[in-house]
C-alpha cells in the first residue's frame, strides 16, 4: 500500500519536474528541476529494488553531470528570451514527435504486461512475494559478492587506477611555490589599451 502511494508520488514529481525543465524560462531553475527529476527517478528505482542503479543515478547524474551542467549554465550567462510566441509555431511538430513516442511506450507496455493478473485493479503492483521474505539479498549485496570474490584482482586494479588519478590530479594542479609563467599580473592586465595590443 505504502509502496504504491510512494510510487505515484515519485512518478508525479518526476512528470511535473521534467515538464518544468522545458517550461521554465530561467535556465538555472531548469537545471535544478533536472536534478529533481533525477532524484525522483532514483526514488522510483529504489521502489523497484534496483538499489545499485538508484545510487548510481544519484552519484553520477546528480553528483557529476547535473552539477557540471549547472556550472556551464552559470558561466555561459544565457540571455532569457521569451519564447512564448514560438510555442504555437512549433506545437504541431512537437505534438507529432511526442505522439509517436507515446504510442511506442504504450505498445511496449501493452506487450509486456499482458499477463499481469492485477491489471484491472488500482493497487496493481501490490503483491506479496513470500520467497523474498524468506531468503533474499539486495542487489548491492549480490554485486559486492561477485566483486569481492570473482573479480577481486580487477577491483584492486581499479582502485589503483583511482589512486593514480588522485595523485596525478594533485601533481598537475598543486603549485609548489615555484614561479610559473602562467600567472596573471593584474596590473599588466588592467593597463592594456587598444593601441598597444597586437592584432593578428
Amino acid at each position, binding site marked *: 500500500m505504502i509502496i504504491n502511494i510512494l510510487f505515484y508520488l515519485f512518478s508525479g514529481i518526476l512528470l511535473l519536474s521534467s515538464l518544468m525543465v522545458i517550461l521554465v524560462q530561467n535556465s538555472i531553475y531548469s537545471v535544478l528541476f533536472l536534478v529533481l527529476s533525477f532524484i525522483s527517478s532514483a526514488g522510483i528505482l529504489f521502489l523497484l529494488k534496483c538499489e545499485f542503479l538508484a545510487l548510481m543515478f544519484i552519484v553520477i547524474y546528480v553528483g557529476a553531470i547535473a552539477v557540471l551542467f549547472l556550472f556551464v549554465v552559470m558561466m555561459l550567462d544565457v540571455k532569457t528570451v521569451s519564447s512564448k510566441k514560438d510555442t504555437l509555431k512549433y506545437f504541431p511538430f512537437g505534438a507529432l514527435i511526442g505522439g509517436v513516442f507515446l504510442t511506442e511506450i504504450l505498445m511496449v507496455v501493452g506487450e509486456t504486461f499482458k499477463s499481469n493478473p492485477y491489471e484491472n485493479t488500482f493497487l496493481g503492483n501490490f503483491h506479496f512475494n513470500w520467497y523474498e521474505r524468506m531468503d533474499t539479498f539486495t542487489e548491492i549485496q549480490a554485486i559486492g559478492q561477485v566483486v569481492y*570474490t570473482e573479480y577481486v584482482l580487477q577491483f584492486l586494479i581499479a582502485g*589503483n587506477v583511482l*589512486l593514480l588519478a588522485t595523485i596525478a590530479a594533485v*601533481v598537475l594542479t598543486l603549485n609548489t611555490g615555484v614561479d*610559473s609563467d602562467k600567472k596573471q599580473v593584474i596590473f599588466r592586465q588592467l593597463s592594456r589599451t587598444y593601441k598597444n595590443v597586437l592584432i593578428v
Partner: protein
Amino acid sequence: MRIETLLFKEIVILPELFLGLSLVYLVLHCTFLAVKKKNLLIQDSVLYLGVLVLFLSCVLVMNDCLDVLELSFLNDTIVNDYVSFSSKIVIGSLSLFCLLMMQPYLAGQKINQFEYILLILFAVLGLFLLCSSNDLLTAYLAIELQSLAFYVLASFKKTSTYSVDAGIKYFIMGAFSSSLFLFGSSLLYGVTGTINFEEFRDLLINVYPGSTINTTLPDISFFDVGLIKFGLIFILISLLFKLAIAPFHTWAPDVYEGSPSASTFFFAVVPKLAIFVLLLRIFYYSFFGFFESWRYFIVISVILSVIVGSFGGLEQRKLKSLLVYSSISHMGYALIAFSAGTLESVQMLFCYLVVYSFSGLCVWSIFLLTRVKNNSLQKQNKDLTDLVLLGKSNYMLAIFFTTVLFSVAGFPPMIGFLVKISVFLTAIESSMYFIALLSILCSVIGTFYYIRLIKILYFEKVLVGKLYHPIKLQSSVLISLLFFLFLFLFINPTILYLFSYKFSLLLSLAV
C-alpha cells in the same frame, strides 16, 4: 565455475601485489615527509626506494615457480606462463636501468616532485599486469593504469608549454584508442559471450587458418564470424595506436618531442614489449583461426610504418624526433615477424623486441647523459649538432654510441644485424617476398641517418666541440655494463635465442 578469492596461495601475483602495496606505502611515506618540512628535496631518496622496490619485485618474479600443469589463476583472469615470466623480467630490468639513468637528468631539470618516481612505478605495475592478463577486462584495466601514468609523465613539466601540449595530445589519442579497444571487446563479448582468452580459443577451435567456416553448424554463423573479425580489427587498431605504428603514428613525434626527456625515454623503451605480449595473446593464442583476415591489415601497417620510419627520419634535425622515426620503423620490423605467423616468427619477435629495447635504452641513456654546459634555456630537446665532436670530448661515450648505432642500423657484426636478418628470413619463409624486399630496401635508406649521427660524432668540420657536464660514476658504470651486454650478445647470441625459443614454445603449447 569454481569461484576463487584472493588467497595467499595465489602466490602468482605476488610481485604485483608487492609492487602495489609498496606503492601505497611510498605514497604515505613521501606525503608525510613532504608535509614535515616545506620544499624538502626527497627526489633522490624516493628514487632509490623505487629502485629497491622494483628490484625486489624482479626478484619475486624470478622466484616464481612456473607450474606448467596449472597456468591460469584467479578465475582464469591471470595467466602465469613462460611468456609473462620472461617479459616481466625484461620489463623490470629495463625500468630499473631507466630509473637509475634518469636521476641526473631530473636533478638538472629541477623536476623535484617525488610523484614522478611513483608514476613510473605505477606504469611498471600496469605493464606487469598487462603481461600476465588473460582476459579483456584485466588487459583493459592494465592498459589504462599504464597509459594514465604516461599522460601525467608527458605533461609533468608544468612550466613548459610543449610538455603540457604533449600531455593533452597523448591523453586525447590514448583515450580514443582505449575507446576503440572497448568497442572491439564489446563486439567480441556480444558474439561469443565471454571475455576470456582461453575460452575464446576453446570456442573457436573449429576455425583454423584456411578453413572454410561451416555455417551449417548451429553454434557459429556467418554473421558471427564477420562480427568477430570486425571486433578484432578494432582491438588491433587500438593496440597499434599504443605502439605508434604508421597509419596511427601521427601523435608520436609531437608527444615524444614535447614531453620531458626522461618521460620520453621511459615510454619509448619500456611499454612496447608488454603490448606485443597482449597482441600475441589475443591474435596468436585466441584468434589464430582468423589469421588470414587480420594479417592483411598488419601487412599494410608494416609497409606504411617501414616507409614512414625510414623516409621521415631523413629530414629531422632534432635528435628526439629522429629517434621517434627510428622507433616507428623498428616497430614495423617487429610487426613483420608478427605477421609471419610461424613458430620462428614468435621467437624472432621476442628476440627483436629485447634487442630493440636494450639498444633504445643505451641510445636514450647517452641522450640523457650528454648534458651540454652553457645551456641557458634549459631546453629539453637536443639538436643533432649538440653532439658534435663527441669523439674528441668524450672518447669512450662516443665509442659506445657508435657501437649501439651500428647495432640499431643493423651492421653485420652486431647483434642488431642478427635479429634483423632473422626477422627478414621468417618473412621469406612464409613467402612474403615483396614485404621482405621492401623492408630491406627501406632499412638501407634508414641506415643513412644513423651514419649521419656517427659522422657528426667524429668527422664534423668544426674546431671546437661542446662542453658537457661530467657523468656520475653510477651512470658510467651502468652504461659500460650495457655496452658489454651488447658485445656479449654479439659474441654469444645463443643465450637470447634459447630464451626466446622457450618463449615461443610455451605460447604454442596451448595451440
